[in-house]
C-alpha cells in the first residue's frame, strides 16, 4: 500500500499551525457536495453522492419477509456497504474487511437509530409478513470521508424510494414512509487541529476521528469516535456545533436533490 511520506505529513501539520489546509479550505469547511437521484432504475430508490472526489452510490431494494421476533409488527432494515476494489488501489476483492463492516454499521445505526424509516408502518401481517428494506452502498471513488458520503447517499436513496407494492400484489406503489433525516458530519484531528470533511491525505495522518449526526432541531442523533487518539471536551463541543451548522447546509442540498 502506498506509504504517505513523512514530508507530506509534516507539511500538512505545518499548514495546520498556520490555520491552513492543503486544499485551501477553512477548518470547518466541507468540499463541494453533489447529489443525483434515480441513478439505478431497477432499484426502488437510488442516489449517487459526490463529496469532492469521493463518490458513493446507494441503492434501495425491497422485499417481503418475516419480521424480527422481538418486533413482530415492524418492517426490517438492513444495510451493507461494499468497499469495491475500484474505489482505491488498497481495496481488494473478498469478504468484507473491518472498515467495510464498520462503515456499514455506522450508516445502518445512523439510519436505524434515527428512525428515519417508519418501520412500524411497514407491517403487512403482524408476526408473519413485513417489508424488508435493503440499503446497499457501493463506494466508487475513495478520496476521504466515506462516512458522510455513504450516509448521505443512503438518505437520498431512501427519500426517493417507492414501496413496490404492485409487484407483490399488495396494492399501489407508494413513497417509503420517512421522518426528518439526521445528517452526519465527520471530523478528524491532527497536530492539535480539528477539521471537517477530511480529504484522503488528512485521513491518513489523522489521530482521531469523530462523526456526529444532528437533526433539524439541532439535537444529536448519533455519534461515533474512531482511531486511537483522544479528543478533549472542548474539541467535542466545537465538533457538535460545526456538525449542526454544516448539517443545516447539507440538509438543504439533500432536500433540493429529492425535490422537497
Amino acid at each position, binding site marked *: 500500500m502506498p506509504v504517505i511520506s513523512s514530508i507530506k505529513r509534516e507539511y500538512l501539520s505545518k499548514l495546520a499551525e498556520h490555520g491552513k489546509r492543503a486544499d485551501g479550505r477553512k477548518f470547518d469547511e466541507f468540499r463541494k457536495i453533489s447529489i443525483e437521484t434515480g441513478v439505478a432504475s*431497477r432499484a426502488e430508490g437510488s442516489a449517487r453522492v459526490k463529496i469532492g472526489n469521493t463518490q458513493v452510490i446507494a441503492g434501495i431494494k425491497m422485499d417481503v419477509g418475516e419480521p424480527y421476533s422481538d418486533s413482530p409488527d415492524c418492517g426490517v432494515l438492513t444495510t451493507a456497504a461494499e468497499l469495491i*476494489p*475500484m474505489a482505491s488501489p488498497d481495496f481488494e*476483492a473478498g*469478504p468484507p474487511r473491518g472498515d467495510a463492516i464498520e462503515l456499514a454499521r455506522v450508516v445502518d445505526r445512523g439510519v436505524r437509530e434515527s428512525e428515519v424509516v417508519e418501520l412500524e408502518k411497514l407491517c403487512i401481517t403482524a408476526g408473519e409478513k413485513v417489508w424488508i428494506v*435493503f440499503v446497499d452502498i457501493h463506494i466508487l471513488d*475513495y478520496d476521504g470521508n466515506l462516512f458522510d458520503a455513504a450516509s448521505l447517499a443512503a438518505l437520498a436513496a431512501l427519500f426517493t424510494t417507492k414501496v413496490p407494492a404492485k409487484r407483490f400484489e399488495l396494492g399501489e406503489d407508494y413513497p417509503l414512509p420517512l421522518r426528518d433525516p439526521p445528517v452526519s458530519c465527520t471530523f478528524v484531528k491532527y497536530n492539535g487541529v480539528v477539521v471537517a470533511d477530511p480529504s484522503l491525505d488528512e485521513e491518513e495522518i489523522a489521530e482521531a476521528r469523530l462523526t456526529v449526526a444532528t437533526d433539524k432541531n439541532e439535537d444529536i442523533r448519533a455519534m461515533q469516535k474512531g482511531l486511537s487518539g483522544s479528543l478533549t471536551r472542548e474539541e467535542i463541543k466545537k465538533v457538535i456545533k460545526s456538525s449542526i451548522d454544516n448539517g443545516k447546509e447539507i440538509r438543504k442540498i439533500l432536500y433540493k436533490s429529492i425535490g422537497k
Partner: protein
Amino acid sequence: MKSKSDVKLIDGHGKRIDGRMPHDLRKIKIEAGILHRAEGSCYLEWGGNKVLAAVYGPREAVPKHTQNPLRAIVNARYNMAAFSVEDRKKPGPDRRSREISKVISEALEKVILTDQFPRASIDVNIEVLDAEAGTRCAGLTAAGVALADAGIPMKDIPVACAAGKIEGHVVLDLGKEEDNFGDADLPVAISPRTGEILLMQMDGHLTLKEFDEALDLAIKGCHAVSDIQKKAIMSKYESVLEVE
C-alpha cells in the same frame, strides 16, 4: 408474471418490442476517465445497462505465488450491484459472476501487451449498477475504454456485442424481454483491428446458417460500438486541445 406465449417479440415488419429494427443497436453512451483514484476508468450506458469499469496497474501481483515471471496477469472482476436487478442480488461473487470474470480476463489478456510487465497484475473492476441484458458485453466494452484511459499498452481496444434469435429472426443486441423469451443469445468480443474473436458464448438453439448470420451481425455490431469507444477516448483530450 408474463409467459413466453404472451409476449410478441417481433412483428411482420421486423419491428421489435422497443421499436428497434433487427439490426439496430440500443442507445450507447460512453465516458472515459470519470473516477479519480483509479488509473483508468469508464462509465457506460447501453440501453438500460449502466456499468462502471476501473483499472489499477500494472502493479506487483499479489499474492506472490500468482506472479508470472514473464508477463503480467490480467484480473478482471465482474460484479453486479445488489440493486442492479429487479430481485435484489445478494452481494458477493456467485458462479455466474466468476465465470464472466474469467472469460473477460481471457479476452483482455489477448490484446494487452503483458510481456512488458513481468510479475505484475493488471486489475480490471467491472461493476454493473443497472442491468438489462448484455451486461457482459457492456462490461467488456467499458473495460476496453478504461484500459486505454489507464495508458495500458495494448494491440487493440477490445469490444463486445451480442446477437441472438427471436421468433426465428436473427437480431442484433438483445433487450431484456428478448433475452428472457428469445431462442438464442450469442455474445461476442473482438479485436476490431484484426477481427480476431476474443470471447464467444452461446445459449439457446441455432442452426449452422443462423449461427453464421448471428456471428456476422454481432461482429458488425462490435465495429459500430468500437467507433463509439474510440470517440469517447479521444473526446477527453480533444476538449483540452480546443483550449488554446
